[in-house]
Structure formats: C-alpha cells, structure tokens
C-alpha cells in the first residue's frame, strides 16, 4: 500500500519527488577569514561529518549509532585512506551530506561553499594516504574506443547512451551532469552500489576514452531530428500513439462523418 501510494504520488508529483533538500543540518563554523584550509576542514568535518563517519574518519557502525536524532541514522563507512578523490566526488556531486545512511546518495545542490568543499577535501585527504583528485584528459581519448569500453563496463547500469538505468536497490544516475573529473573519480571509487575499476581493469588511457565518450554522449549528433530522450522504444511508442496515432485519428475524424 505504501508502495502504491508512493507510486501514485511520484507519478502525480514528479516535481515534488525531485525537489532539492533544504540547507538544513549544515553547521558552519565561526572561523575567522584567515583560518588555514585544513583547520577549516577539520571544523566543518566535526560539525557535519563526524556524526556518521566518526572522529578523524574512523567510521561508525550502525549498532553504535546514538538514538534520538530524529530519523537520521548516524552510521557511515570509515574515511581513512579514501583520499581527496572520494571526498571531492561525494561533496561536489552533492551526494554528501546524506540524511540517512541507508538511502542512495543522489546528485543534489551542493550545500557547502566552494571554499568549504576545498577545506573538507583537504581535511579528508589528510586522513591516511589516499589518492589525490584525478585529472582526466578526455581530449586524449578516443570516442569510438570509449563506446566499446563503456558498453563492456558501464552500459549494464548507466545505459549505453549514458541516460541512466535501474538495478535492484538503486538507480544508476544518468551521466549528463557528471563532469569529466567526477566520471574518472566514480570509476576508481565505485560509489554506493557501483563496482570499482582499478588501473589494472581500466587503464588511465582507457579512462580518458571513456570520459571522452561520456562527454560525447551528453550532446551526441542527432541527425534524425528530435532526440526524444535517446533511450529508445519507450518514448518512441508514446510518440507513435500520441502524435502519429492521434494525428491520423484526427485525419479520420476530419474526413469521415462525425458522431451525432
């Protein structure tokens, strides 16, 4: 029943379902302008991240979580050694902070200012010896090779034209808003339910091609006209019925005798 209501609600109010979360739960430290970046990061971390990720990125297992904080499950994976790469990805996509640990993080409005993000990335990067933020070079990549690699490794979830897809338990997001850096980060990190791909599975050169393909897939050539979503038969069927079929029924009504 809940599912039915949710279905109906989401069908009726797509705008509501996609509404952005308000800027709540952000604790902005009262740091003077000259505060060093890492120090600012530490304060932001303590105020916004430590509840779930633990002090100094130690992580919080679900059983340890303190109750009485509304519906927020204060639990999260450890961050030691994840590096600036993961922090950069999760913060700049708006995946973090997350209201509940057991829901899928989704792309949303970034609640921190760019300097705050820089500070947090610097702080998380300093916990352990994690990898830095990658610098992909899509201009060195080959789109055709990228299509093949994308088909082999990514299309099963993200759809072959990178329009996003479904898997039991999650939605693989469409990649039209993913920046080249975020694509490169996600491939190496494997956020949420996504598997990760090390340099032995996908080399940096191949990654450049994949990023080049994703960039191309954002705005591919559409020689056929209106792209209607580039996901194939579902929108095509809607057009066949509600444009083609409707127009031809209109023609029939125009030519034949109308109902009295």
């Amino acid at each position, binding site marked *: 029943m809940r599912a039915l209501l949710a279905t109906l609600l989401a069908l009726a109010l797509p705008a509501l379902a996609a509404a952005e979360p308000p800027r709540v739960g952000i604790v902005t430290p009262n740091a003077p302008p000259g505060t060093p970046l890492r120090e600012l990061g530490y304060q932001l971390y303590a105020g916004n991240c430590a509840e779930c990720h633990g002090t100094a990125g130690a992580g919080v297992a679900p059983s340890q979580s303190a109750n009485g904080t509304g519906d927020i499950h204060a639990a999260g994976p450890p961050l030691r050694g994840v590096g600036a790469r993961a922090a950069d990805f999760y913060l700049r996509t708006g995946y973090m902070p997350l209201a509940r640990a057991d829901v899928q993080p989704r792309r949303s409005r970034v609640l921190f200012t760019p300097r705050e993000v820089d500070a947090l990335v610097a702080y998380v990067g300093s916990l352990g010896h994690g990898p830095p933020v990658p610098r992909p070079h899509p201009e060195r990549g080959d789109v055709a090779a990228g299509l093949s690699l994308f088909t082999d490794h990514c299309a099963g979830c993200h759809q072959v034209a990178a329009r996003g897809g479904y898997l039991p338990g999650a939605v693989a997001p469409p990649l039209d808003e993913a920046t080249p850096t975020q694509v490169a980060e996600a491939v190496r990190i494997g956020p949420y*339910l996504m598997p990760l791909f090390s340099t032995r*599975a996908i080399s940096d050169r191949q990654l450049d091609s994949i990023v080049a393909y994703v960039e191309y897939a954002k705005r591919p050539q559409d020689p056929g006209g209106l792209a209607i979503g580039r996901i194939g038969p579902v929108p095509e069927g809607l057009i066949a019925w509600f444009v083609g079929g409707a127009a031809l029924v209109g023609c029939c009504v125009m030519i034949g005798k109308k109902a009295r």
Partner: protein
Amino acid sequence: MIGRLKDLLVALAVLLLGRRRPGGDPEAERIVPPGSPDRRAEAWVLALFGLATAGSIAFLVVYALDPLAHRTQLLGVALGVALAALGAACLVIATRLVVTEELEEPYPAEHVGDQDAVAQLVAESGDRITRRRLLTLGGAAAGGTLGLALLAPALAVGPVFDTDELAKTPWRRGRALVDEAGRRIAADAIEEEAFYTAFPEGADRETVGAPLVVVRLSPDALHLPPERRGWAPEGIVAYSKICTHAGCAIALYRKPTFPAVEPRPAFVCPCHYSTFDPATGGTVLFGPAGRALPQLPLLVDRSGNLRAAGNFSGPVGPSWWGVRSRKARGA
C-alpha cells in the same frame, strides 16, 4: 515575331484560365446529380496544388545540394508538406467540388439455391465410386506422406533432434581465462568490489557458453554449497555471464560501499532484472529467473593465472524442457 508570341501567350492564358460551362450532354439522363460551381473551393485546390508543387521542388533541391546540415529534417518537411497539401486538396475536392451523394442498396443475401447446386454437383461427381471410405483413406495416406516427404528437407535447417548442442560450452579443465583484450588474467589482479568479464582462451567468444563474470569475495562472505569446495580459490568466483532466464548478458554487478546498511553484492541481468547471489553459488535473489547462474570451478596455475577447473555446474543460458537433468559438456 513579338506579336505572334503575344498571341500565343494570350491563347495559352485563355486555355488555362478560362472557365468551362458546367454540364455535359443536356439531353442524356445524369448519373451523378448536378451541383453548382464553387469558385472559392477551386481557388483553394489550386493554392494547395501550388504548395504541393513547391514542397516537391524543395525536396528535389535539398536532395541535390551537398553537405547540408539537418538534411533529413529538410527532406522530411519538404516531402511532408507536399503530401499534406496534396491530401488537403483531395479533401477539398471531396467535400466541396464533387457532389456528396447518399446512395442506398440492399445488403447481399446468401444464395441458397447455388449452395445446394454446388453440394449436389460434388456429390454426383463421385457417385460412381463404390469403396469410398477405403479410397479416402488411401488418398489421405498418399497426400499425408507426400506432405511429410516435402517437409523433411526443412529439418536440415537446424539440428532438430540433437539438443545436446545446447549443453555444450568451450570450457574444460585447464582452459585459461582471458580478458576482453585476450590477455590471461592473474588471480591477484582480481580485486574485491570490482567485476570482470572473462572469455575462454582460444575459443569463439560469440556463444552463450563462453563469457564469464568473475568477482572476488572475502572468504568469510562466501557460502558455496559443500560440493563446490575448492571452486573459488582465494575467494574468486566465476559464473556464466548469460542469464538463465532469457539469455541476456549479466552486465551489472552491484556491490555495497557500506555493507552494514546497503544491499549485498549481486549480479543483475538488465533485461528483466533477475538478480543472482555470487556468494551462494549463483542462487536467485529477485526477478523472474527460475534457475541459479551456472558456476565455473576455478584454479590458479603455477604462473598465478586463472584457469577453469572443469565445466559449469549446469547448462548455461535460458532453460528448456529437462534442462536440470542435463550437464554442461565440453564442445
């Protein structure tokens, strides 16, 4: 010279623009009832013909011009306008320029006399025959067997009776696993939280028996059936990449980042979302698949590369009548 040209033009104009007096032979009885002329409708038809001509010419011009952005769109609009204008002209002709009559006639009835005559004719034609049943039987036998004989060559189009083909795979003990680029796969190159597609070395990849999905699970997460002990060296498991439901490729591996609260690792087929558990021998977690994903036993050779230790735990690909009593066999 100019005078004659002028005369010619005037004659042409009169011929084209002049109006005909309506009505044919006034003496004869009409079939189609008369109607009054409608000059505005004629003007409309003329305009629509003009539009159709313009559309067709535009189509020809666009077709003739070389590299042109949005060529398909321009061609489509030009031809579409021509067709639509011509259609509209026909509609104006139908509704305004020809008379719309309402005729009436009786619906056809059945022909009882003729039915009887046909039946009688056929019956009488055969009434010299005395052993009718035997002849019918003989005729049916001849016709039926001839039909079978003519159909028999069609059996050559496929190995109809040899369904053993379905259980064959290129895998056998000792065959190395290779990646998309054909390189052998070292066991220590397989990382947790990642997934890999592997193929049999030196065999055709475009068969349902060939492709594998390979993942590494932590040994304590692994709960394979007891008879599969040793199938997963270092926690590396390999399964057929072809879904047992309808034969699509299992192109999807979900793995949790924070296993405490997120769904467990699983293979998913993106066609109908059948979900298989790599930790328990490929059993079905969700979706319509009715049979577990066949597992391939693995071994690590002396140079540290992955090889098959035998064939799959069952036939690969979509199920068929009696599939569970078959065993995967070498090609």
